[in-house]
């Protein structure tokens, strides 16, 4: 089309025409459209001589024509013309026949080329022979034939040019040689005819260039369009297959109607309904009633342009089972404001697995805690056992020197008593009077001895408490005096309590209680240590004991800071501590709880923040046979 714009373009087109048949697709197309042209040329090639024959019959009859020279009618030349016309018909028929063969189709252009040249030769020879060349328009059949051939057979421009040159040569040569062949001179101005033919060839070459390149451009445009189409189709196929084969359910909802307009097979499968079914119901109907309101509110917000979550979990109703499908829904952005595009993924199993996992984790945690607890208790009891061993060992080691000190101090006291007594004696009096320092020395000795005795007695008491506390020999149920255990524990804690905590003993009448004495002492120690620590500066610990039926009750109250209500439920949990890392193990009370449990007793706690805490321990006085 642009080829007409100027010679520059024409020139380019001309150059392009040399290259364009290197494109196999285009060449194929040229061959394809060459076939009907070939047939057309063949048909015209057959019909034209027949027409001429018919005309010549008429002419021969009438002896006059605008076509033939009248003087030649009925001569031998006329018979030659008839023979030539038969030749031409045969030529046309061969071309038609060839147009039906593969070989012929592939070589349409050379065949038609040869046909045209041969046709021109024969026709021209006839014309010369008939002496009709002088007649105007007598080249018309040939031109007509050429026009048809050129219009239908996609010759290359160069072929057209070559054809023109060939035809001109044929005409010129034949016209020039005619006198020799025919015995009569060519009456026509050959040069004029040839010039006309050359002009015609040049023009048709030009037209051919235009036509040919136009064809090529059309071909290219078509090819591009077809390529684009192919790509489009491929891409569509790809996305269609993605859509169809996706494991995620993909759906499109018309916002206006609230109904699904497109769903993929995964959606159908997930919801257990066919696409038609889904299209026929409001999309909210597939949402489980639990989630319907929530999801609808998101939808409303989204359609108003307000922010709404684009990924959330929801329960969907599936016709496949009575259980709802738990799905993860993702709303995808889309260019079309009229629709909502979303994807749903069935996470029911995932959620179930998750829940199972969580349960496992919980069990594991519980087991872990149990192990931790057991280990802690083991550790603690081991600690207590080794502490007991240590205490017993120390007590044993102290005993001998302590016994000696204690006894010696007592002996010294007795000895000094004797001396003091002697000092009263009349005989000794002057001696003491004479040496007042001796009297003083005796007094000092007596005094310091009193200190030694007091100190030794104190140590004796401590050692006794230590031994009683450790009670290593009592790893079995024994009947013991609870008060004794409390006392020895208090002695152990003496340094912790003195000057700071007043201990009030409100002991009732208690029979001996059957228990593990050392374990019970540990319980008292734990509670009393906690009480002492709960009391900030100064305070009171009150220990009450009484009998309630077949149970012994020990109540230990402090005036400490108390336990926060939210902690109260946790205080017997192993590892729970409010004392901070490194201060408390968080095990004391859990062990206490366990020990009381082992005794078939119970421990209760009542606390008020700022006022204090009371632990109440109830123990069966007699051990029942059913627990070891």
């Amino acid at each position: 089309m642009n080829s007409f714009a100027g010679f520059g373009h024409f020139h380019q087109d001309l150059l392009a025409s040399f290259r364009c048949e290197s494109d196999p697709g285009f060449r194929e197309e040229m061959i394809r459209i060459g076939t009907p042209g070939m047939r057309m040329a063949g048909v015209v090639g057959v019909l034209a001589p027949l027409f001429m024959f018919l005309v010549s019959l008429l002419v021969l009859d009438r002896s006059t024509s605008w076509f033939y020279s009248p003087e030649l009618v009925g001569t031998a030349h006329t018979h030659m013309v008839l023979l030539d016309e038969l030749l031409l018909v045969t030529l046309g028929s061969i071309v038609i026949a060839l147009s039906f063969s593969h070989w012929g189709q592939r070589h349409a252009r050379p065949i038609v080329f040869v046909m045209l040249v041969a046709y021109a030769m024969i026709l021209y020879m006839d014309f010369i022979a008939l002496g009709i060349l002088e007649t105007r328009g007598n080249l018309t059949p040939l031109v007509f034939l050429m026009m048809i051939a050129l219009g239908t057979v996609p010759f290359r421009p160069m072929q057209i040019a070559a054809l023109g040159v060939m035809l001109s040569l044929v005409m010129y040569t034949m016209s020039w040689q005619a006198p020799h062949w025919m015995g009569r001179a060519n009456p026509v101005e050959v040069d004029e005819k040839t010039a006309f033919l050359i002009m015609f060839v040049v023009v048709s070459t030009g037209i051919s260039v235009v036509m040919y390149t136009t064809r090529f451009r059309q071909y290219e445009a078509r090819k591009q369009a077809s390529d684009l189409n192919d790509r489009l189709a491929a891409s569509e196929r790809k996305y269609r297959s993605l859509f169809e084969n996706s494991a995620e359910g993909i759906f499109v909802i018309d916002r206006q109607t609230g109904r699904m307009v497109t769903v993929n097979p995964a959606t159908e499968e997930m919801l257990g309904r066919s696409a038609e079914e889904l299209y026929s119901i409001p999309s909210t109907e597939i949402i489980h009633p639990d989630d319907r309101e929530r999801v609808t509110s998101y939808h409303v917000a989204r359609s108003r342009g307000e922010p709404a979550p684009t990924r959330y979990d929801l329960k969907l109703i599936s016709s496949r089972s009575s259980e709802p499908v738990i799905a993860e829904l993702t709303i995808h952005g889309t260019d079309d404001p009229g629709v909502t595009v979303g994807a749903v993924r069935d996470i029911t199993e995932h959620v179930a697995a998750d829940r199972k996992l969580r349960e496992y984790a919980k069990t594991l945690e519980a087991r872990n805690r149990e192990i931790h607890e057991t280990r802690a208790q083991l550790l603690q009891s081991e600690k207590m056992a080794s502490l007991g061993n240590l205490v017993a060992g120390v007590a044993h080691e102290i005993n001998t020197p302590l016994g000696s000190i204690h006894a010696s101090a007592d002996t010294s006291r007795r000895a000094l008593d004797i001396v003091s007594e002697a000092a009263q004696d009349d005989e000794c009096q002057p001696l003491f009077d004479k040496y007042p320092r001796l009297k003083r020395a005796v007094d000092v000795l007596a005094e310091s001895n009193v200190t030694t005795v007091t100190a030794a007695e104190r140590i004796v008491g401590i050692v006794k408490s230590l031994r009683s506390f450790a009670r290593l020999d009592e790893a079995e149920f024994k009947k013991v005096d609870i008060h004794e255990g409390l006392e020895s524990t208090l002695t152990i804690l003496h340094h912790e309590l003195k000057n700071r905590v007043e201990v009030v003993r409100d002991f009732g009448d208690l029979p001996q209680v059957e228990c593990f004495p050392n374990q019970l002492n540990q319980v008292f120690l734990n509670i009393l240590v906690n009480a002492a620590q709960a009391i900030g500066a100064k305070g009171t610990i009150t220990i009450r004991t009484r009998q309630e039926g077949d149970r012994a009750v020990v109540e230990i109250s402090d005036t400490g800071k108390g336990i926060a209500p939210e902690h109260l439920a946790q205080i017997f949990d192993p590892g729970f501590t409010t004392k901070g890392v490194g201060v408390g193990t968080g095990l004391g009370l859990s062990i206490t709880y366990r020990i009381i449990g082992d005794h078939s007793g119970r421990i209760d706690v009542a606390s008020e923040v700022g006022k204090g805490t009371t632990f109440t321990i109830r123990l069966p006085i007699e051990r029942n046979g059913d627990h070891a």
Partner: protein
Amino acid sequence: MTADEKHIILIVDDEEMVTTSLRSFLELETDYEVVTFTSPIEALEYVRENPIDLIVSDYLMPDVDGISLLLQIKQLRPNATRVLLTGYADKENAIKAINDVGLYQYIEKPWENADVKLVMQSGRERSDLLRRLTSKIGEVEKAHGELMGIQNDLLKVFI
């Protein structure tokens, strides 16, 4: 044994401070002759050579423990009263051995001097009584033997 003879009390403990403090107390408060040893072997040698009225032995000692010492002394001097001195931790074992040794009493460390004095006195009295009993039995047997001799003589005379 006559009244003017001093009663001999033997004290054996591997800790000298124990023997010393016990001896000084007993020497101050009583008229017993107190002999102390820190080695049970030496104590045994002494017992072999000398009579004793009372033995106080520690339970836990190197070489020989208190129980076997007392057992050997029992064989050597059955009339001597045997007292065991024990620490707290060995009390159980000591008590188990009471019957084997024929223990008169045990004193727990740390001891009270007054208790010790009391045990010593009663123990000494016991051994005195035992000794007296033994001598009386000896006398009776001697008389019995004499009687039997007389009887034999009489029989010889009559038969």
